[in-house]
């Protein structure tokens, strides 16, 4: 078992292994998402309070969940890379960041679209989740901007790792602050996802979407990390053998 983990950390092994996992992740992801979409859009009953608008939940919640999952993965792998000096871990962090930013944007956009019919406005400062999510988008941008600003890969890895960890500590604090702040705000009733009590017909599609999108995220992440690894190892022999198998002949 230990050997497996040890091997996994080796770039060529990871490169190969990831390629095998990606199609499986993708297939299961699409199946779950297909079920979730159809069931969520057409089979689940309309919500008591929100009517059919609540169906946005089936894309909004997975996006929000992924935005946070991506950050956790980014912070944990950055930490592992920083402490144990594992290059692959840094590659994972680098790959997770843009994906996380995309899903954060999606969460904000779908949240905003959902808010328009519910609150009558495209943006509601009184909703703690939207505001916290916006701040998290800034965290992602800061991370990616810092990486881009530093030329040396190792230095960029380690500096951005420090930033990711500091940000990770701050996320619960930010969320708490914003919740407290918006509770002071005498605003409209916050949207309760799914209505008073979420019934199974509504819940199962949601779970399927969350799981499906997680697998999709996994597939996308593995693909990006593969690219990242290839780029970082571009001068290595295994890469040469991989891309130009017939040495000496063109």
């Amino acid at each position, binding site marked *: 078992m230990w050997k497996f983990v040890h091997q996994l950390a080796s770039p060529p092994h990871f490169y190969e292994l990831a390629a095998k996992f990606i199609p499986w992740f993708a297939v299961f992801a699409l199946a779950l998402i297909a079920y979730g979409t159809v069931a969520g859009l057409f089979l689940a009953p309309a919500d008591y309070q929100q009517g059919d608008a609540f169906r946005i939940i089936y894309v909004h919640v997975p996006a929000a969940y992924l935005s946070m999952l991506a950050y956790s993965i980014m912070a944990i792998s950055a930490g592992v890379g920083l402490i144990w000096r594992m290059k692959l871990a840094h590659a994972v962090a680098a790959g997770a960041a843009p994906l996380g930013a995309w899903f954060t944007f999606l969460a904000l956009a779908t949240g905003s679209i959902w808010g328009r019919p519910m609150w009558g406005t495209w943006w509601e400062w009184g909703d703690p989740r939207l505001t916290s999510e916006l*701040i998290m988008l800034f965290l992602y941008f800061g991370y990616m901007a*810092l990486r881009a600003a530093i030329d040396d890969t190792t230095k960029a890895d380690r*500096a951005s790792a420090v930033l990711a960890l*500091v940000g990770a500590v701050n996320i619960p604090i930010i969320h708490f*602050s914003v919740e407290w702040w918006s509770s002071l705000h005498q605003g409209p009733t916050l949207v309760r996802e799914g209505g008073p009590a979420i019934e199974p017909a509504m819940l199962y599609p949601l779970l399927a979407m969350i799981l499906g999108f997680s697998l999709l995220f996994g597939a996308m992440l593995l693909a990006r990390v593969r690219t990242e690894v290839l780029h970082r190892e571009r001068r290595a022999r295994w890469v040469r053998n991989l891309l130009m198998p017939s040495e000496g002949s063109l």
Partner: protein
Amino acid sequence: MAVEDSKGPSLMQGLQAIVRRDLLLAWKRPGDILNPLFFFAMVATLFPLAVGPSPEQLAVSGPGVLWVAALLAALLSLNSLYLSDYDDGSLDQIITSPQPLPLLALGKSISHWLLSGLPLVIVSPLLAMTFRMPTDTLGVLMVTLMLGTISLSLLGSIGAALTVGLNRGNALLSLLILPLAMPVLIFGARTVSLAAADDAVAAGIYFLAAYCMLALSFAPFATAAALKISNE
């Protein structure tokens, strides 16, 4: 409590040394103190001019404006926190010093606060009065600004350490610190607003104090790590 080591200076002496050094340098460059202060005063005076002199409006927006101005002023001064050390080579000396780097980082943050945060706190009541803020909120304003600016000096030094020596590090620094500064801004400004409305302020002040303690415990270590990485 300082361990008197026959081999070298104690921790407390090391801390005092770096704070004293920065203060002396700033004495020779008064701009270090004056610039953030001017900026703070400028923002705080431009606002009423732009928004209009209605006293109720001013009083309501006062806490928010003052707090945003303080935050921006802090950001402005953070950029040069390690810049001059980097330029003249003393950063290398600081990093390789036998004194623990987190301690020295803490010292830099302390001197930064003394030079930019503390003046803001002292000047704030004057500006608050131009905003027609009720006099019984001034105490809360000063306490929240004090705790907030200390947190900003500590957390900001992490960003300053990560971006030292980078091109256009200025804008990047602001982007990095923004999320960290949000809880401080939120609790600071809103607590003062609560004071103006005669509501309970204890919760806000406790939060700011707790956040300050948290920053105090881990920011010096994060800054030290960042300095070592940036200076490789």
